[in-house]
């Protein structure tokens, strides 16, 4: 197991205008299940882009601070090496799937990262998300839920130590969302660190160990899930749904 993810004094702005992330200090332990919540535009997606090195490599903004993954600074680490450690599932699978078959979609990352046992990994990943036999299907013809599962299978096949998901249930029905979170919990029990951006706080209450609450580019609350969701008044002011069973 690695050392976890550490963010030290991170500030990021896409342009010279106001920063989307302000002075972030954060430590995510290896093997934990962390939920990130906050209203739209609070900087959640930008925050998780830091974990995969997408920021600052893909966005030429103003970046200060350090992002350390398993002891290595993302500034000095090869992009492929970060991808081998941190898998990212994007919010809208419609915008990120581009191959002509499901198996090619999954194979893409495995070939880029020069991984072995490609076929076994593909079959195993598809089985994990309940899409066995979908190998030759065209991803564009699948339902949104199935597309989301294909995206997740692509990351699972890479067997990364960290899985980061950006609002994975945004396009799923309730049943699929429950199944997805059960799957993520199972992965977490096997030692994989799960970080998920989620508006549905019920899922975070049930599955996450820790919760971060973001607002206007800052982490304004951080701690154990139960203790965060007990701060009802503060959450209400921020416009965050308080889970029913708290």
């Amino acid at each position, binding site marked *: 197991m690695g050392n976890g993810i550490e963010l030290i004094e991170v500030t990021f702005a896409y342009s010279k205008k106001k920063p989307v992330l302000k002075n972030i200090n954060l430590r995510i332990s290896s093997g934990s299940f962390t939920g990130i919540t906050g209203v739209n535009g609070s900087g959640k997606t930008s925050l998780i882009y830091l974990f995969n090195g997408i920021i600052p490599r*893909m966005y030429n903004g103003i970046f200060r601070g350090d992002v350390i993954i398993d002891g290595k600074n993302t500034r000095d680490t090869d992009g*492929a090496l970060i991808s081998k450690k941190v898998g990212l599932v994007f919010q809208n699978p*419609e915008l*990120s799937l*581009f*191959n002509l078959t499901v198996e090619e979609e999954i194979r893409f990352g495995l070939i880029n990262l020069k991984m072995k046992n490609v076929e076994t990994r593909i079959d195993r990943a598809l089985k994990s998300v309940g899409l066995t036999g979908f190998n030759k299907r065209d*991803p*564009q013809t699948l339902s949104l839920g199935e597309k989301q599962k294909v995206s997740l299978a692509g990351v699972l096949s890479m067997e990364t130590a960290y899985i980061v998901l950006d609002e994975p249930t945004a396009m799923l029905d309730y049943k699929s969302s429950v199944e997805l979170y059960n799957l993520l919990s199972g992965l977490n029990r096997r030692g994989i660190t799960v970080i998920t951006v989620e508006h549905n706080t019920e899922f975070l209450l049930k599955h996450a160990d820790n919760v971060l609450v973001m607002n206007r580019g800052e982490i304004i609350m951080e701690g154990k899930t139960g203790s965060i969701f007990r701060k009802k008044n503060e959450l209400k002011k921020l416009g965050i749904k308080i889970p029913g069973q708290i």
Partner: protein
Amino acid sequence: MTSKYYNAVKILALILTSTFLLLQKNTISIFLINSLLITLALVLSGQKIYSRLKPLFFISLLIILFRLVLGIEETVEERLAGGIVASLRIVSLSLLVFLYTAVTDPSNIIEGLFFLPKTFRLGLTMTLSLLTVIFDEINLINIIQQSRGYKKSFITPWKNIKPVIIPLLHRTFKRAEQLSVTLYSKGYGD
């Protein structure tokens, strides 16, 4: 023969047959090939062929008409024969591609192009995959705009473009940005 070589042979056969059709001067041969292709298309794809033949019929008529009007150095019979041969060629080429795509999955087309550089094949994969998506999006944007009272104008057709092209461009740029981020996150290019 492995799958990739089989698919490569199919592409080669398509290119060779197209070249043969373009170079062929014998009207009877072209007519026979055309008839054969229509029969095959009917057998393989049934009703679908009619939607393909409909626009081709008008294109063929236009070609014959242009040849009749513009080919002033030839006799009327020669112009008519020339127009028919040219339109038969175009119909045959279109049917040939139609037949090829009817019996070949896009993924097999890419597999058959294994000899091309990786970046080129990736670009082609994205194009084949996203082309249908973009057409679907155009239809969807049209429906959305019509539900908001947008009506196509035949008097000022340029005004029809704006409500469709702006959301489409926005979606396409967003898709392009997301794709580049996805490629990066999956280790492409490193």
